[in-house]
């Protein structure tokens, strides 16, 4: 009878395990659903035309987030230009030239560290090189901080995507007498375009909600401004300041801003996923 009770014991313990995993999944999903629910409930209703046409108000007066939206877009755009140029070239070096050399391994390792380094430290670093020397916060400093967070993502995806291309593709290019750099540009990059765009979208998703590094690089601006050499308004810092304020209308704007950012991030991620699923054209 010992074997029967052992079998029963195993069945019970298995049932407990399956139960635990199911409950864990349920708990996790309901916590995350609760967050999405509050976000939509508090933010969605506040979206109207004024959000996109008026600048951040003084407490008690009507206003929107136009200056913050535009500021965020400009800063992210500048950051992405820097990140794509540096990241694609660095990723290309790692995949096409670096190989398995000690230097490539070092760059790869450090890139991985930068990929998950606390973003607030990136802000401190940029403060040191781009804010303190010129005695002033600026949109450019904010862009630089965001770029430094985006570069590792682009580098990593570029390297991975280029490595997926078969060596025969490179050899056939070179066999026709094409210089290596034109082979890379016209054949390898083109073949990996979908994956590389995915990397860009992931990087954009990563930086569009980044708050910590902007707190002391771009700072914030109450007014509409396109001047990147001065402090510029941006959604994350506006959300941060308004959420911690004591005014109800400011808090409402903070929720709206959070919805806008979440929507931007989710759109970028979903696009990235669709692109990476797309079957490779032959």
């Amino acid at each position, binding site marked *: 009878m010992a074997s029967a009770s052992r079998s029963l014991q195993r069945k019970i313990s298995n049932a407990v395990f399956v139960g635990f995993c199911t409950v864990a999944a349920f708990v996790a999903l309901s916590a995350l659903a609760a967050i999405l629910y509050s976000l939509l409930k508090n933010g969605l209703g506040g979206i109207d035309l004024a959000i996109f046409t008026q600048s951040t108000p003084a407490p008690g007066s009507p206003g929107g987030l136009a200056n913050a939206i535009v500021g965020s877009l400009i800063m992210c755009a500048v950051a992405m230009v820097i990140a794509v140029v540096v990241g694609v070239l660095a990723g290309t070096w790692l995949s096409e030239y670096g190989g398995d050399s000690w230097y490539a391994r070092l760059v790869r390792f450090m890139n991985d560290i930068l990929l998950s380094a606390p973003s607030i430290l990136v802000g401190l670093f940029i403060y040191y090189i781009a804010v303190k020397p010129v005695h002033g916060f600026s949109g450019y400093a904010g862009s630089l901080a965001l770029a430094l967070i985006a570069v590792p993502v682009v580098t990593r995806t570029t390297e991975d995507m280029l490595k997926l291309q078969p060596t025969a593709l490179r050899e056939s290019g070179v066999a026709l007498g094409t210089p290596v750099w034109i082979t890379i540009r016209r054949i390898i990059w083109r073949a990996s375009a979908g994956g590389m765009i995915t990397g860009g979208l992931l990087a954009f998703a990563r930086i569009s909600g980044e708050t910590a590094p902007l707190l002391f690089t771009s700072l914030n601006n109450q007014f509409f401004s396109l001047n990147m050499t001065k402090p510029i308004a941006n959604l994350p810092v506006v959300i*941060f300041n308004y959420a911690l304020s004591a005014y109800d209308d400011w808090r409402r704007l903070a929720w709206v801003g959070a919805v806008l950012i979440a929507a931007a991030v989710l759109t970028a991620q979903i696009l990235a996923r669709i692109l990476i699923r797309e079957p490779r054209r032959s």
Partner: protein
Amino acid sequence: MTTVETATIARRQPRGAAFDPWFKWLCASAATALLVALGGLIVSLLIGGWPAFAKFGFGFFTATTWNPVTDVYGAAGPIVGTLVTSVLALVMALPIAFGVSVFLVEFAPKIIRQPIATAVQLLAGIPSIVYGMWGLFVFAPFFAQHIQLPLILAAPPGSLLEKLTAGVPNGANILTASIILAIMILPFMAAVLRDLFLSVPQQLRESAYGVGATPQEVVWKVLLPFIRRSAIGAVMLGLGRALGETMAVTFIIGNSHGLPKSLFDSGSTIASTIANEFAESSTPMHEASLIALGLVLFLITFTVLAIARAMLGALRTY
């Protein structure tokens, strides 16, 4: 018979070939720029924080007074706060993330597997400020009213429970910050663990089931040993995220300096202290002390991330 003089054949390079070495050089300098950036980050933290280390010495790490008015800074409070909240968050998130990933790979009905997995991956990318806001406006009031207050009222004077629950019942404390952190790192860890479980060869599963193992035994004795190393890496990566997280914590930890006296006491982390004070630092020594805090955070996360990456090996996470 004609002989061709090799010297008369003009060597012609394809058009654009002259740029080849330049292109390689360009790519190599972009890669080097990454190293320079990380190096610059370390050096700037070292230089910026040096005055604080020089003035307070080792006491910087052990003193609990953080006072911008008297310009005296001891970092024990934020350092302990960082470690406690991160470890607590990890302890809470790990079993749940493990459960979610096992559920998604082994037990969930086929139809819902992919949708839930995609949802979890998408949630891993939601900016942390959203988690922070939810913590501030929804979770903290709920926690204060329905958990903290009843516990404080129920605690007999002088008991251990009273010590643990001491604090202002406003929901902004070490424990709620840890819970928000746990919710924030959960989707990320669940997604990575799921990828790891999926990487186990199907034959291993089948042969284990074939000899009569229960699903629980398959997970514990076959799958987990197979992915153990990378799984530890994934956990460390989650810990790294929690350690450096700023916005999710700053909203809800209460931002008081000094050592937290209980789980229900307000506190601070390194990242939240920098986020709150840096832009308005009052004196050069205040600024130096904040940067010194940043260096401490960098050293902690660098160690954790280096171990994580070494453990993860070839697994790619973004």
